[in-house]
């Protein structure tokens, strides 16, 4: 990878008394990446994000952002980062506009009405600019959270569960916004999400962690490409197909039968042979669908780690 490293984490470790939340974690995020940061609950994602934003101090390890050590260059680095950390919390007694104005002022960003209204417009809250945040739904707060993250035009955007609480339309809008920020504005996005489909759609690279340690890291394509795969084969006669399979040597690959669907788990290069074997034995194959989603991959990887 020749691209410029935006985030470089080495041997990052954080312990809370006897609990090791992040253990010797390494990761690299490159310029222009939409970097998916995945892991089950308690994997150490939020702790890592908090360390990247210097909310928490690591016990050990190095964080370099924009090529500079975070500890010594905290202010300069944070000036170039916009973030949502977990749920977006605001000053509930202030209006959406006032919240953004205050945060822009602290960030040293443009506090003009035009700029703030532009941000509210971007997330669809312009009409409610003067409403107190305590009257907002969770989804609206989430949108406002995205507005505050983009307020000072950051180069790196760290989003921790940005679509939580949004309706499907809102989720799509946020996905489109992330794509727009990455592709057209050249921003680097660090995206932590529980919605794996979301990461699969928009991430260019990703990491899966568990128990504070890296399980896999790479491009989404690389990670989903595997020598072993699951495939659902829909046949005209499942019972006959099963009896043929039982005599074929693929009997251990057959994992599940539901109506006319047979679920196999087998080496990728054997799928065509299996299909041929069924057809030559007078089994009509109506469909052959590979099951290779990020969700399956994620479950396989994290369950394997248990």
């Amino acid at each position, binding site marked *: 990878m020749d691209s410029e490293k935006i985030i470089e984490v080495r041997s990052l470790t954080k312990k809370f008394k006897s609990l090791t939340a992040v253990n010797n974690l390494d990761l690299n995020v490159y310029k222009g990446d939409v970097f998916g940061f995945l892991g089950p609950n308690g994997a150490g994602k939020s702790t890592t994000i908090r360390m990247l934003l210097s*909310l*928490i101090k690591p016990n050990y390890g190095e964080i370099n952002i924009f090529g500079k050590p975070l500890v010594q260059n905290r202010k300069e680095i944070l000036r170039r980062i916009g973030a949502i950390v977990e749920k977006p*919390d605001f000053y509930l*007694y202030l209006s959406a506009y*006032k919240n953004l104005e*205050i*945060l822009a*002022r*602290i*960030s040293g960003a443009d506090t003009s009405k035009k700029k703030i209204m532009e941000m509210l417009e971007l997330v669809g809250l312009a009409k409610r600019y003067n409403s107190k945040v305590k009257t907002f739904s969770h989804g609206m707060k989430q949108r406002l959270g995205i507005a505050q993250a983009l307020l000072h035009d950051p180069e790196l955007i760290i989003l921790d569960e940005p679509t939580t609480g949004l309706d499907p339309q809102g989720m799509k809008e946020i996905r489109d916004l992330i794509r727009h920020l990455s592709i057209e504005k050249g921003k680097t996005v660090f995206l932590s999400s529980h919605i794996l489909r979301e990461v699969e759609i928009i991430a260019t690279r990703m990491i899966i962690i568990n128990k504070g340690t890296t399980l896999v890291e790479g491009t989404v394509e690389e990670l989903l490409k595997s020598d072993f795969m699951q495939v659902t084969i829909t046949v005209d006669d499942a019972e006959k197909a099963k009896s043929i399979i039982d005599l074929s040597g693929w009997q251990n690959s057959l994992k599940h039968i539901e109506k006319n669907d047979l679920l196999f788990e087998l080496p990728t290069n054997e799928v065509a042979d299996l299909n041929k074997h069924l057809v030559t034995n007078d089994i009509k194959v109506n469909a052959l669908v590979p099951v290779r989603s990020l969700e399956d991959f994620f479950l396989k990887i994290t369950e394997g780690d248990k």
Partner: protein
Amino acid sequence: MTTIIYVELQKMFRKWRTYIGFIAIGVLAPIVQIALYYEGSGYVNHVTRGLQDSFFMSGNLFNGYLIGYIILQALYIHIPFLIVLVGGDLLAGEATSGTYRMLLTRPVSRFTLVTGKFLAGAVYVFLLLAFLFMVSVAGSLLIFGSGELITIKGKLIIFAADDVLWRFLAAYGYAFLSMTTVLAISFFFSSMVENAIGPIIGSMALLILLLILTVIPIDALQEAKKYYFTSYMGGWDNFFTDPLEVWNILRDAGVLLLHILGLYALTTYIFIKKDILS
């Protein structure tokens, strides 16, 4: 730093609890003024009863300065409880509302943030005392007029009318130190927890405890009194003595200042080291 102070004051004065102190003073001071308007001349007669046999008392002894002095004495012990409502919320309030995360991911150092918050708290203390001064001294002067100030501190002292205003200003300056000490205590407690109720109750409990210990007439407790910061909070009254006890005033003010600086330094240290988990 000015940005943080400005932002903190904006946040502070958009919260209802900030106005509790102003409302309390705005209600209590006029009640005392009205009561004294009808009953106050009896107080002056009582104080000067012994002198009236030997001296002819002329002029307006029941005046705005006396009322301002009485109100300050009456309310002084209660104002700390109004201060902790704001001081206890300064840091813990951010943790409670979850806004630490947004605030501390901005390009501002924790030192600047904690200092800005503390200074904003000090501005609040100043404004509250300025309001008390305006209502109790300036307001009383308007209603009751000016004149000599009569006080009793072991002996009866009468200050000339043109010798009083500076004493009030100095006393309020000292009161600012006292109240800032209270602010520093609640601010310190506020840095350690994630709920504003704790520091508010904790600071009030500490104040009540020390004030009670101060007045219990047991030798050991009286001896320990010099170690309680509350023992130095009433030092503003030293400006109404003749001759002025400059050394006592400086010593007491120094003790309070050390408390403020010490508590601020400790709070800053805790805040800079703190992991933000809220």
